[in-house]
């Protein structure tokens, strides 16, 4: 892109009806905490995320962005007790509109939410189930790649990243436990990931993503190919917001990984060779558009099946073949502050293990 210096007076600016906006420097962030009451369990209150974003421009064309996240308020060295994560720390080399280079810790460009996960951006106290057990958000990894805009509403990004650790795959959460998170990540092979978006139609954003790589069972000589494919759409006009996403994960050699882990630990992880998830969400702004305050009602239907296709000789664990209907409210006293409440009606195919539904209340903000 030509960043030509403009002659004095070529451009003028003025603000219309712009109030004295809050000033933020190079430090921004988002936070959320919530109360979850799962059926037949005690309620839990958790300060889930405390995230700080930093940016720095070395030159107008060389820039740094970092995102440091503290999860669950307290770190004790185990994930259950909290995590301190470096979710983003990359440098952008801005070369041309069509072609820019990025290197460092990057967000994997798969799905709607993984790269757009600030609390006021999505409805529901918790992220969609599909964006948890099918697309393992927040999914981040170390690597390098390119991004840019091709014109006509098309944009892309493509990275080479560290692969997955297949020892972390599970029946319940699919590939989620296989993220290496850039922490001394082993790289016997590289993974490729990319996303294309089309914004050329009014009020509509279409996206498609892919992740191609291998899952290495590092304790064994085994490995398996892993392919994540995803498509999504977002539509927003006046008071109506619609979004939908479908994602599929293929693990062709899941049977071999199951065998190896069973031999090693005595526990069969029952990893599927195919995982499938999709959701559709409709939201409606009850209060008039244009007000700085908004009240939004929403409903979302989800299908998240981490046992969709099993390797020959394995049967699916039906409690992980889940469907969820979520409905709730988001109140925005300010566009950057979201007060949320919802009820998640969760069901599975198991006749023995019942899926617990939940009532959730949360508060999230961005600054």
């Amino acid at each position, binding site marked *: 892109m030509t960043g030509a210096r403009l002659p004095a007076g070529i451009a003028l600016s003025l603000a219309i009806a*712009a109030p004295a906006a809050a000033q933020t420097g190079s430090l921004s962030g988002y936070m959320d905490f919530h109360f979850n009451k799962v059926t037949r369990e005690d309620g839990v209150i958790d300060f889930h995320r405390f995230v700080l974003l930093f940016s720095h421009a070395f030159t107008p064309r060389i820039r740094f962005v970092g995102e440091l996240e503290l999860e669950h308020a307290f770190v004790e060295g185990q994930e259950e007790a909290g995590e301190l994560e470096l979710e983003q720390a990359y440098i952008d080399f801005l070369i041309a509109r069509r072609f820019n280079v990025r290197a460092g810790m990057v967000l994997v460009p798969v799905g709607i939410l993984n790269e757009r996960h600030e609390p006021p951006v999505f409805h529901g106290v918790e992220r969609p189930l599909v964006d948890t057990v099918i697309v393992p958000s927040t999914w981040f990894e170390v690597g390098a790649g390119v*991004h840019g805009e091709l014109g006509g509403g098309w944009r892309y990004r493509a990275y080479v990243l560290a692969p997955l650790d297949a020892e972390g795959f599970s029946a319940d959460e699919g590939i989620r436990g296989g993220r290496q998170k850039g922490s001394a990540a082993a790289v016997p092979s590289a993974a490729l990931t990319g996303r294309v978006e089309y914004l050329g139609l009014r009020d509509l954003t279409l996206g498609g993503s892919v992740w191609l790589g291998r899952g290495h069972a590092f304790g064994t000589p085994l490995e398996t190919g892993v392919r994540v494919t995803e498509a999504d759409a977002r539509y927003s006009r006046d008071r109506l917001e619609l979004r939908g996403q479908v994602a599929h994960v293929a693990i062709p050699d899941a049977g071999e990984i199951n065998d190896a882990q069973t031999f090693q630990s005595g526990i069969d992880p029952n990893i599927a060779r195919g995982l499938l998830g999709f959701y559709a969400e409709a939201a409606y702004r009850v209060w008039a*558009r244009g007000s700085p305050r908004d009240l939004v009602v929403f409903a979302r239907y989800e299908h998240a099946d981490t046992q969709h296709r099993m390797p020959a000789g394995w049967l699916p664990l039906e409690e992980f073949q889940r469907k969820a209907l979520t409905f709730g409210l988001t109140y925005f006293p300010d566009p950057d502050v979201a007060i949320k409440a919802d009820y998640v009606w969760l069901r599975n195919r198991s006749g023995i293990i019942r899926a617990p539904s939940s009532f959730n209340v949360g508060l999230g903000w961005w600054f």
Partner: protein
Amino acid sequence: MVVLMARVRVWVGVAAALGLAVAVAVQAQTGRRVVSMKAERFAFTPSEITIAVGEEIEIRLKSDDTAHGFRIVGGDVDIRIPKRGQGEASVRFKGDRVGRFAFECSHLCGAGHSFMRGVIVVRDRRP
């Protein structure tokens, strides 16, 4: 209360009509094209504007979520786009010479802030 609301609606309607009339008159007098642009995490829509050399446009920027910025790279324009529902910002741009003038979000707005970029293309009038 109902009467009061009806009066408010009438005055809002009159004000909107007057505003529209003023805008049309300004455009007719100045010949300046107005381009409406939406800013949201993490894109400007449209992200590419093409004008003829010598043409002046007014870009009216409205956010669909948080506050954003609009900066023309290498230029003297860097303004704040207010949050959703809190008004709009406006920039005038005159294409004095042929070229591609990049613009970007200048206010850290989230994880994908760096993707918020676009370009104003100034073309020669000749075919």
